[in-house]
């Protein structure tokens, strides 16, 4: 295995959970909802995926179950923010803590058990090509899912009527409501989608990245995914680029350290957030760009007028 190949494969592994979670959150935020609970949904997805994979012996079933767990755990958030029109920041933070806690409780019996690893694709002949083989044809299914979902979300948001409606709800919910669009239904579906994607991201951690369950194994990736959405100014392709940039910076830092350059590790951990701040500064200088992509209704509860 060449050094470059190892590098690319490690970057892909590090970027995939970020990409999955951030793509889901992007749709949620485009619909005008801020869900800060990504970390909690990921934890729920991770533990359920691990348990189901171990129980059935199928990591793929586990991943599906993880997505479902993300949907289930986000239901209270839907109820709070869409039915009761509660504060989204507070509800989202509660979801983050709730998800982590529930996952820890549920997973207590699974600590210290090796899990089932999601198998990597093997296409005869193709997978054996040096470099291109393992990178393009030798990944596990969730890596491909992350790409397909990014493309699908981009297509959905900007090429379909439904996507237009979702964005309209996020830009001005009163206008969308006046036009007869079901604001709360659209938002509910978006939140559920976000839950499924975060659950899938968590599942990637516990059945592919590091096939084991330990509490807090999400280790802040949900928060990085949130930063990533802002960094990407709510554009799917930029989320993809951002996830791989964050992953590449991190892995390059590790390489530099192993090579003995003596980089401060604290700086490495801070880099994704620093990059987000820089991106925010840059985009806020360009008013038109900011206005064009920011969902103006983000974080604001919608109560239909009667």
């Amino acid at each position, binding site marked *: 295995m060449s050094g470059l190949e190892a590098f690319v494969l490690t970057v892909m592994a590090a970027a995939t959970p970020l990409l999955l979670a951030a793509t889901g959150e992007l749709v949620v935020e485009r619909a005008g909802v801020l869900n800060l609970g990504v970390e909690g949904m990921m934890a729920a997805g991770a533990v359920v995926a691990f348990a189901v994979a171990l129980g059935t012996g199928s990591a793929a079933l586990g991943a599906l179950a993880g997505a479902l767990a993300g949907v289930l755990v986000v239901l209270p958030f839907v109820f709070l923010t869409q039915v009761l029109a509660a504060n989204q920041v507070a509800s989202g933070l509660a979801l983050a*803590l709730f998800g982590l806690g529930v996952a820890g409780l549920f997973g207590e019996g699974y600590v210290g058990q090796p899990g089932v690893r999601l198998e990597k694709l093997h296409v005869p002949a193709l997978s054996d090509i040096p470099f291109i083989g393992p990178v393009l044809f030798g990944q596990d299914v969730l890596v491909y899912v992350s790409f397909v979902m990014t493309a699908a979300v981009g297509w959905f948001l900007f090429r379909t009527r439904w996507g237009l409606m979702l964005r309209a709800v996020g830009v001005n919910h009163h206008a969308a409501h006046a036009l007869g669009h079901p604001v709360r239904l659209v938002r509910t579906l978006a939140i559920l989608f976000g839950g499924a994607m975060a659950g899938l991201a968590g599942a990637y951690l516990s059945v592919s990245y590091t096939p084991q369950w330990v509490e807090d194994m999400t*280790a802040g990736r949900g928060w990085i995914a949130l930063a990533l959405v802002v960094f990407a100014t709510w554009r799917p392709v930029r989320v993809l680029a951002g996830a791989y940039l964050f992953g590449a910076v991190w*892995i390059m830092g*590790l390489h530099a350290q*192993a090579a*003995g350059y003596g980089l401060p*590790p604290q700086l490495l951990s801070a880099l994704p957030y620093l990059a987000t701040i820089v991106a925010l500064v840059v985009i806020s200088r360009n008013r038109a760009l900011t206005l064009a992509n920011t969902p103006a209704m983000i974080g604001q509860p919608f109560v239909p007028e009667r």
Partner: protein
Amino acid sequence: MKHDMKLALAAVLGIGVLAAGVADSAAQAEEKLKVGFIYVGPIGDHGWSYQHDQGRLAIEKALGEKVQTSYLEKVPEGADAERALERLARSGHKLIFATSFGYMDSVIKVAKRYPDVKFEHATGYKRAKNVSIYSARFYEGRYIIGKIAAKMSKKGMAGYIASFPIPEVVRGINSFMLGAQSVNPDFKIKVVWVNSWYDPGKEADAAKVLIAQGADILTQHTDSAAPMQVAQEKGILAFGQASDMIKFGPKAQLTAVIDDWAPYYVQRAKDVLDGKWQSQDTWGGLASGMVKMAPYTNMPDDVKKMAQETEEAIRSGKLHPFTGPIYDQDGKLRAKEGEALSDKVLLGMNWYVKGIDDKLPK
């Protein structure tokens, strides 16, 4: 949030236990010694906090009806720790174990306010009349695995996944290197700092990077079994950390340096019950059983024999891992021929021994 829930649960269970005790004998229930613990990580980390919790369970098992234990997990170092300690002290806990370095100042502060409560602080260096400190000489185990690494590595290079550049971790790296150099003077170590005690994903990334850079044997001073899994997957060798990780690397694990707090915890709880508790400074190693080695596996018999002999020599006091001559990276002599570094130097160690190609982050 979660600890609140667990404490509430513990309280409810505690009431249940107390109620049962009342039926038995009211006086006995009152005499029960309440022992509290605070952990920096979740007890489900299968590493550092998990091992401390095993110690708590050992107290319950050994002293049964005479004690009642409770714990708070995921307590951040800093102001939260002070609150957690205060809460345990106020709710009648007479013996409290604070199990992370960063709790040090909080322990000293709270201990002043509760002079009749006994505190035990792990890995720190500040004592008081009612504050004992204790730690384990993990470096003894790391010297052994360094020797094994030098014997088993084909490329003569180990990858070391480190957490934070504090003396405890630096001491471990140095001890590992000295062990390795005693077998192969040209042995190389690559060090990666992940800036976390516990992040399975990052630890796995670091492991992959180290392998890509040529290490064919891994060791870690972080708490998850993720690097062991990577080693198993890539078909190389590794050492477990804090607890036996053989399940994660049946073909990869050579041995593991295990923390065993149970005997110490049980003894200290007994001391309080017998009224014999005194403030003391304990730094236990292989000799006292606070550090244990997991079974030696995946190695030929001669290496196993060498490991066992080294372990025995350290246990009996015949061998001190930090025996001179020891030079640091700049070539300065730190320990003369035949002289061992003092505990004071070991506790404040912030320099690398000669031969390590890494710059120590400050």
